[in-house]
């Protein structure tokens, strides 16, 4: 393993798989949890789904710093907006603010984002805001390096009008498939479900995820298996 010092100082990037999916009554956002600097995994349990308001969350991919700063700015503006309006902001407004920042600073930013949430006027909505600052309102969308492996999967598996359970299972399955194939995605699967009752987080550790083709089951260490009363000390 030849890890040059340059790699460890590389900018933190979230290789990532992020997903946003609407269902009948709300949205489900899902993401993996790997943040890498070059080949080193800087954080294997990061939270890429960030809260913007009580009813709107954002999935971050690309440069960790860029996506964090964009989220922070939007959270700040949305907070002011909510106070002015006297009621929660709509998902559309949140997404619009995100894309204005992404678009107007496209030369400096490198982050793909998915905004998802629920408001009382439009219900559950998902907005994809890829690199460059386009805004697209979609029934579902995927992003990050791991998403390349999911386009075909969603073509086949996506259905209109799913229930909450179906949507959550779809998202978890998709993220775990991407983790299996994409080196820059890994760790645990986190989801956030947002509907009229609010937002709820779920967490799926790696060992609860199914094993896909050619994936190996986790191997116990021999130290755990050979549990004798007093193991012989090792002599070098």
């Amino acid at each position, binding site marked *: 393993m030849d890890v040059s010092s340059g790699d460890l100082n590389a900018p933190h990037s979230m290789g990532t798989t992020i997903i946003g999916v609407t269902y009948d009554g709300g949205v489900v956002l899902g993401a993996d949890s790997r943040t890498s600097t070059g080949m080193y995994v800087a954080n294997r349990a990061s939270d890429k789904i960030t809260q913007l308001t009580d009813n709107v969350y954002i999935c971050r991919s690309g440069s960790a710093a860029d996506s964090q700063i964009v989220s922070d*700015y939007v959270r700040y*503006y949305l907070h002011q*907006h909510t106070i*002015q*309006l*006297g009621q929660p902001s*709509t998902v*559309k*407004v949140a*997404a*619009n*603010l995100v894309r*204005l*920042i992404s*678009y*107007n*600073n496209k030369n400096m930013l490198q982050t793909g984002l998915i905004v998802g949430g629920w408001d009382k*006027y439009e219900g559950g909505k998902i907005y994809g805001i890829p690199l460059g600052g386009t805004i697209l309102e979609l029934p579902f969308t995927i992003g990050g390096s791991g998403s390349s492996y999911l386009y075909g999967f969603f073509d086949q598996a996506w259905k209109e009008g799913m229930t909450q359970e179906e949507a959550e299972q779809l998202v978890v399955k998709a993220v775990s498939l991407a983790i299996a194939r994409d080196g820059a995605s890994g760790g645990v699967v986190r989801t956030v479900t947002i509907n009229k009752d609010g937002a709820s987080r779920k967490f799926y550790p790696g060992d609860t995820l199914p094993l896909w083709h050619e994936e190996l089951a986790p191997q116990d260490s021999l130290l755990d298996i050979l549990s004798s009363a007093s193991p012989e000390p090792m002599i070098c």
Partner: protein
Amino acid sequence: MSSIGTGYDLSVTTFSPDGRVFQIEYAAKAVDNSGTVVAIKCKDGVVMGVEKLIASKMMLPGSNRRIHSVHRHSGMGVAGLAADGRQIVARAKSEATNYEKFVFSLVGFLCLYFTSSVKLGVYGEPIPVKELAERVASYVHLCTLYWWLRPFGCGVILGGYDRDGPQLYMVEPSGISYRYFGAAIGKGRQAAKTEIEKLKLSEMTCRQGVIEVAKIIYGVHDEAKDKAFELEMSWVCDESNRQHQKPLNVPTIRVPGSDDVLEEAKTAAKAALEEMDAD
């Protein structure tokens, strides 16, 4: 109500000993002396009408609008000093547009960043009527705070239809803004308010509302004091596709199902007047 505030009424930055700011009250008198503006909120929209007193026979009918469209979904009726009213309307238009559409500029990001007195809006949705009313009120109030500015000599009725339904707000020269079912300002406001209170607004459609507003305006018009007047009306309702439309007698904005809502209203109002005189 009127009292002379000798000495305490010279500047808008002076309070009287009994806690009044006389300059603002005098500004309100300018509103009270103008033609009546009446507006009601019906169950499916807002109807507005203005008694436009004609100063000279040389004036072209349809000129000197008192009702202005502020945004697709809202309109403003002005009473008082017309020039002041134009300023308020311009400000409201600018607030409404900036809220929805991003102001293109090379320093795009910084525009979001610094908040000047004009909020550079970026929200991508039409401004909620409540928010618009608050911004207009805040602007009017601003002009009552500094000695180098005089208060606006006009009151404004703002009617709009957004995703929370039809709403009606009135902004006074003091900067107060309340939400109303029915509102009236100007000369005949007392009589107009009495008439509005008799109406069952929650059951009325805008079509019926137009007739009622016309009747009220014809009713409060004082034939003896002011000779000629022109009736100007507008509405924003389900029938108009939630767009603010005025005037109703322009051929391009013909309301389906009726030849001319405005003419219909005028005839009904005149008939009602005759009825009253006949008693």
